[in-house]
């Protein structure tokens, strides 16, 4: 009952929830009984759901997967989609490319699923692209950003429901320029595809908004001493420092910036500050947070009022588990799947589901901006909010910030 009350409340602000709550209005006997694709009958539709459920990257996917499953369970309690129950088969992909592809092959050939939904790590999610395209199976990523799989877009793969790295880079510069009035931006990213993707979007947005990138430092994920990049930022006389590295190097950079007397505002990407309290501990000095902000693709603080309904849904489904900050990221992709199944009509095929996914456009009630997909747009989300963080307290900054980079020069 609690779930229904909370989700009904959320439905006021979330189109997806509104659609889901109307599921019973569709005629349960609308199915024809003749299906060309596997994984669908008059009574059920089968989804292969996977994420890292063990191993060192389990934290990215475990709660996200079970949040998605809780969403499907909630839809089933309300009558399912076009009268069909969603049956979910869960598997552990360990965030390993080979494991993920093996899991998907098993889902498709043995379990005969209708569609694939999963993946919390870009490098493994990207590995699936060739297999799903060859077999024409719809693949909706769970919470992987998956830049290399959605840029350039391909027909069967949808991802970045929490935002791509282009979203990260574009929105963070949008915030730095529009909210912090930055004119000279220093940018520290990783020297990999992630860094290339977010820094390209950052550079584009800086140019578009009339700001200058005065230092762009690319560092290894395994960097030990960040003195050199921070010194170069200081020498560049930037008026804001943007960090899009992972949390370990980001903590070292913030610590070193303070030690070297760098007093400009620092804006960190979501991947740099996945758990703000832990990040503050790792930096170890509250004085380093005098002028510090972090980005988030959510519509509120992780435990903020707008996030409560999804936290409550999860807790009601799994009373013995305390969700980690990645939990909420699992739901938007599940919402998109349900949305597209509804839009695909009472007798969906994999191809009509793909066509419906290509028209998805709704507010999740979870994310900062809408989920918008298209024929040439397979990345779901393009917005961020920003939070001022002093090491203990969080204050959401006004406004939602958007990325406008679509790969153009």
């Amino acid at each position, binding site marked *: 009952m609690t779930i229904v009350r909370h989700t009904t409340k959320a439905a006021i602000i979330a189109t997806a929830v509104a659609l889901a709550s109307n599921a019973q209005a569709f005629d349960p006997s609308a199915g024809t009984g003749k299906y060309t694709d596997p994984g669908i009958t008059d009574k059920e539709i089968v989804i292969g759901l996977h994420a890292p459920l063990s*191993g*060192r990257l*389990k*934290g990215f996917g475990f709660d996200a997967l079970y949040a998605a499953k809780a969403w499907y369970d909630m839809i089933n309690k309300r009558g399912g989609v076009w009268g069909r129950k969603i049956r979910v088969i869960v598997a552990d992909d360990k965030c390993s490319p080979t494991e993920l592809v093996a899991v998907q092959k098993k889902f498709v050939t043995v379990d005969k699923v209708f569609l694939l939904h999963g993946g919390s790590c870009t490098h493994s999610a990207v590995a699936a692209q060739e297999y799903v395209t060859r077999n024409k199976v719809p693949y909706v990523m769970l919470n992987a950003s998956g830049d290399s799989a959605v840029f350039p877009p391909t027909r069967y793969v949808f991802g970045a429901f929490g935002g791509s790295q282009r979203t990260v880079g574009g929105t963070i510069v949008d915030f730095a320029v529009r909210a912090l009035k930055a004119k000279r931006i220093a940018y*520290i990213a990783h*020297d990999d595809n992630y860094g290339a993707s977010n820094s390209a979007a950052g550079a584009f947005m800086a140019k578009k908004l009339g700001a200058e990138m005065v230092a762009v*430092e*690319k*560092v*290894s994920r*395994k*960097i*030990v*001493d960040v*003195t*050199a*990049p921070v*010194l*170069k930022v200081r*020498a560049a006389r930037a008026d804001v420092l943007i960090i899009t590295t992972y*949390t*370990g190097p980001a*903590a*070292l950079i913030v*610590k070193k910036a*303070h*030690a*070297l*007397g760098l007093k400009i505002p620092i804006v960190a990407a979501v991947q740099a500050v*996945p*758990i703000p309290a*832990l990040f503050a*501990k*790792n930096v*170890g*000095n509250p*004085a*380093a947070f005098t002028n510090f902000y972090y980005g988030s693709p959510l519509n509120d603080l992780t435990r903020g009022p707008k996030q409560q309904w999804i936290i409550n849904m999860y807790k009601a489904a799994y009373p013995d588990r305390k969700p980690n900050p990645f939990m909420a990221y699992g739901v938007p992709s599940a919402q998109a799947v349900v949305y597209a199944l509804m839009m695909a009509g009472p007798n969906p095929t994999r191809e009509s589901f793909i066509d419906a996914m290509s028209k998805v456009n709704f507010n999740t009630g979870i994310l900062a901006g809408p989920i918008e997909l298209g024929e040439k747009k397979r990345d779901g989300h393009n917005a961020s909010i920003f939070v001022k963080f002093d090491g203990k307290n969080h204050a959401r900054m006004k406004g939602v910030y958007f990325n406008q980079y679509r790969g153009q020069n």
Partner: protein
Amino acid sequence: MTGTLILQGVASGLVTGSVYALIALSLVIVFKSTEVINFAGGEFVMLGAYVAMFFLVLLGLPYIIVVPVVALIVFCIGAAFDRVILDRVLGRHRPGQSIMVAMVIATVGLSFAFKGTVRLFRVSDNVRTLPPIFSTDPVFLGQVVLSRQDIAIFVIAVAVMVLLFSFFQFTKLGRALRATSENPRAATLVGIPVRRMRTLIWGIAAALSAVAGVLVAPKLLVSPDMGGVIILAFAAAIIGGFTNVLGVIVGGVVLGVIENLVGLFVSSKAIAIAPFIVIILILMVRPQGLFGGAAPIKKV
């Protein structure tokens, strides 16, 4: 401006390099005594950091107690590895067979075992750090800025190296260990219990790595993968000479400084590859390292 950058880069490089040197020392003393390259050296560093985290964060003990306790615990683990595993590997050795591969594989196996064990605990799910030894507020030394923490790391690393040097140079046990490493057969003939000495060396090397782990934690952060720093220790050892203790210390410091100067004057991207380029250059020009040379005493 360039002068200040160089000075700053050198100062920070000295701090990082001193920790590389400490880890490299643990590799070298094992290699000199047993001719085994310890591929689990990085995991001893990681283990030291996690054990320290247990005592510092969960039990709230001060560093002054935690550092010796961590050193003792990891010493026992290192010594036990030699007694329980390496001893048996050596025992199965048949004349004419190369024992090196088996020994190296044993250390590689140990490194995976350590990482896997740590990952069983939820504490390893996220990157963490240890409470600061001192404040991370800046201290200005002329135009150079360091944190109190950096200065503490450097001082402690140097103190540990001096202690180790004194132990090997001026104590009876230390001299026995050196004799064992230089010529085990001759050491046996003069009554030194070589097997026990070898166990002691493994314990000391493990303890040294653990102390380095406590020191490097604020710079590297604590995660099951932090043992990857061993690659930099190998680089330091190769630069200095794998058989020369003083050379290894110099190698570590040189490496720390090179990383920063490359980052400042070439590219931040090049920091990660600089140690490997240096290794290749050293191996091409002077394979025995800057300070390495033929052993002064030929083995009997």
